[in-house]
């Protein structure tokens, strides 16, 4: 095989999304263990006391429906749970309750910003396992996470590059946060990715042997792991070696994947229908109810806002669902443009990061702000100042004009008033020389004179109007 063989990677991704239910999937225990001590969010159901039976959290079902709708997927009105068996200390029952044969979410797809479509094979509802940490000579188990509801989204092998893989996981994250089913906190493992990768010669109709890289928890690590793994596989093939089908781990520090001495390679999960839980039987009405409370997905915003805004700014703003939905509420194109700029240049500036947690200004406040700017009552600097005051606890409830007045940033546009100020400035001795110079053809001194007028008006005068008045007076 020559070094120049052209290999095409093929990538499929399984993503575990932790649902933000109040309680766990099968027990009535707090599902949000962030910042809590180990093994404090557990019930006898979670640590698998004999004789305990799973209950079913309806909110978990509803969030699964939302996840499915966000994936443009068919919601299966009939679904069922199965047991997947394996022994590990952080799996208290010795089996995980999952949906092997009848998942709640059927075939779907998501469209990436680049326009590419990735098909979803299915997605199923299951419970998370606990967490093991291995110390020297002993291991610790924390079961706080055991029983957290997960939706596992299984994509088709539709991606063919590291960039596409990254784009997919990022878009998946966006779609899931827009559907409001997860906290989407990657650092805390709210979304975890298992990536299947193979390479095959261009033009070949069979796929190569795949490896699976498990438990990636950032977009960047997905991209880097795919890049590395594709190159590793190509190198092996170029050397005439074969790829072993195996599970590999990703080391973020070294930027390499390594073979995991995995029990799971030979594991037989002995799936069995879960006899303790009746099947889930949904009605069209339940699905419709969720559909009605879904906010638009990123793709919709791309289309709608794309008629007015540039691609880059949309992608930036899409990371903040409340911002785009506020923009979509503004009906006027100019308003959308100006507010989008304020959002990205002011609100997303690093020094204002804390404001993102505050309540956003109302549509009326924002519309009035834009209107005052359009009417030349507010300069762009004034507009920014007023905008920031919308987040001030003392000011945020006040209307735009009141805030602008209190800040003293409303521009003087009244011609009569402005003329009086201009006249006053023109009588001042320090402006006499400039007036002479202007009349002698040195037009650049006009700026000096405008500045003097602005000073006299304490910044409230509209500079372009001032400039017009001066030109007339000095003719």
């Amino acid at each position: 095989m020559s070094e120049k063989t052209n290999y095409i990677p093929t990538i499929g991704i399984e993503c575990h999304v932790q649902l933000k239910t109040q309680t766990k999937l099968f027990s009535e225990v707090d599902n949000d263990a962030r910042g809590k001590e180990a093994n404090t969010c557990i019930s006898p159901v979670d640590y698998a006391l004999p004789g305990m039976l799973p209950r079913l959290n309806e909110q978990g079902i509803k969030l699964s429906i939302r996840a499915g709708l966000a994936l443009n997927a068919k919601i299966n009105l009939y679904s069922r749970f199965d047991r997947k068996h394996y022994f590990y200390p952080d799996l208290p029952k010795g089996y995980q309750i999952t949906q092997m044969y009848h998942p709640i979410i059927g075939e779907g797809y998501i469209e990436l910003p680049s326009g590419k479509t990735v098909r979803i094979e299915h997605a199923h509802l299951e419970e998370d396992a606990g967490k093991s940490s291995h110390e020297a000579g002993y291991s610790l188990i924390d079961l706080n996470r055991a029983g957290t509801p997960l939706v596992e989204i299984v994509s088709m092998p539709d991606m063919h590059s590291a960039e596409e893989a990254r784009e997919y996981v990022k878009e998946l994250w966006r779609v899931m946060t827009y559907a409001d089913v997860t906290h989407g906190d990657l650092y805390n493992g709210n979304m975890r990715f298992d990536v299947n990768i193979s390479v095959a010669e261009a033009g070949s109709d069979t796929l190569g042997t795949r490896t699976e890289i498990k438990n990636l928890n950032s977009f960047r690590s997905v991209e880097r792991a795919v890049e590395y793994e594709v190159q590793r596989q190509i190198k092996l093939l170029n050397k005439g070696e074969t790829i072993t089908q195996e599970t590999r781990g990703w080391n973020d520090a070294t930027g390499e994947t390594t073979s995991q001495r995995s029990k799971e390679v030979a594991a037989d999960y002995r799936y069995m229908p879960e006899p303790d839980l009746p099947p889930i039987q949904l009605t069209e009405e339940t699905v419709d109810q969720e559909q009605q409370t879904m906010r638009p997905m990123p793709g919709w915003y791309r289309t709608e806002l794309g008629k007015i805004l540039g691609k880059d700014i949309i992608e930036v703003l899409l990371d903040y669902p409340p911002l785009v939905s506020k923009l979509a509420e503004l009906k006027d194109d100019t308003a959308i443009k100006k507010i989008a700029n304020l959002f990205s240049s002011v609100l997303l500036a690093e020094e204002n990061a804390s404001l993102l947690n505050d309540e956003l200004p109302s549509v009326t406040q924002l519309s009035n702000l834009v209107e005052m700017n359009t009417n030349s009552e507010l300069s762009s600097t004034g507009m920014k100042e007023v905008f920031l005051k919308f987040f001030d606890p003392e000011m945020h409830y006040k209307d735009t004009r009141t805030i602008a007045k209190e800040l003293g940033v409303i521009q003087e546009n009244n011609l009569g008033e402005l003329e009086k100020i201009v006249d006053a400035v023109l009588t001042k001795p320090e402006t006499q020389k400039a007036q002479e110079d202007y009349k002698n053809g040195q037009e650049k001194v006009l700026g000096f004179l405008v500045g003097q007028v602005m000073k006299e008006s304490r910044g409230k005068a509209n500079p372009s109007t001032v400039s017009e008045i001066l030109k007339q007076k000095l003719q």
Partner: protein
Amino acid sequence: MAILAQTTNFVARTQATLEKAHRYQEKYNIFVTIDDEGAIQKAQELEQKAQAGAKLGQLAGVIYAAKDNFLCPGSDTTASAKILTDFKSPVTSTVIEKLNAEDAILIGKTNLDAFAHGSSTENSYFGPTKNSKDLERVAGGSSGGSAVAVALEIVDFALGTDTGGSIRQPASFNGVYGLKPTYGANSRYGVVAMASSTDCIGFFTQTAQDLDLLMQITSGQDPKDLTTLPDFYRHDDGFNDPIKRIGIIKEFDNDAVDPEIRQAMAQEIETLKNQGHEIIELDMPTLKYALATYYIIVPAEIASNLARHDGIRYGFRSADSEDLMSLYQNTRNEGFMSENKRRIMIGNYVLSSGYYDAYYLKAAKARTMIIEEYNQAFKQCDFILTPVSPNPAFKLGEKVNDPVAMYLEDVMSVPLNLAGLPGLTVPVGKTTAGLDLGLQFIGPRRSDAKLINFVANIKEKN
């Protein structure tokens, strides 16, 4: 002796019962735990309640025992298995909670085949329970301790579980009433699971009426057990329609059945005819697959349900293990009885990839056919009468080393578990050797009250 709520002398009666329990325990090995302290404490509470003039529950001072697979914080819950020795549960099973709320007094936990795997109570880590009529014979199983406790009139009633006959067969071997209700009638919450899709919570009593009283108290939908049925038990179901059509299964009348049991059947049929009931012969050819179906589905669920016993969080843990794998292996190897291991292995085998379709799925299909055959039968008759087992109580040690012979004892008791039907063992007399004989009446799903009332009625008339 029928259950009778007491109004006074709670402590004295409890004390007398405890003494009797200890006395019989030496001879019969009925109990895993006798909870003297807890029982006396409860009796004292009732005494005070009565003196204060407070209203007492429907089972005030009624004394009972629970099979040792029911969780209750008062004593250990061992399921008669080494792997659960010294296991104390922080939760109480729903059924015990309901009985205690009616002021019944729990005096102890009874012996069983470890994890209810067996038909003789010989598979107990604490040794076998002896038959109430013959110390050389088995009590039946797996709820052997509970059956003997009622047969010897130590307690007013006892709790058992029936996954494939574990209440009805020991009831038959000891001459008491034993009810396996419709699947889902009583909550399984807080009962050590054997096979989730067939486990039923039921009772041993001296009379059929007692079963009615207990079912009124314990049955009903439980939010902690999603397989419980919406409340359906009506005390007076069937009161207005005493004459019934009784089905007899032709296939169950054969040479493999003990002659004295066949004769008891013939006699019972005569009695029923004399009382005006109609006898219908049923053809149920699918039932012959029930035992094989049962011994695929049930071990699969057993293997799964027992996976949690890994020595990590509670119960027995093998002392010297080098790593995780050996900790699992040693704990489970030392902690389970050989019958437990046999069923775990069968279960894992039938669920293995490549065998799942051939065994588990096929058994699931057979189960559907069996259910359908019962549905058809109940179009022709109201109840079905069959023996409980092919033989009366056998000798200790006679079958314990021959698992297939032991499984064959279940051939008449398991079919209704697969179909979730209620079955009621009725004592009908004794063999010439003095062993107890019982027969079972089987009804459609949710016919529990009708079944109990019918049996109470034929006994009254007889």
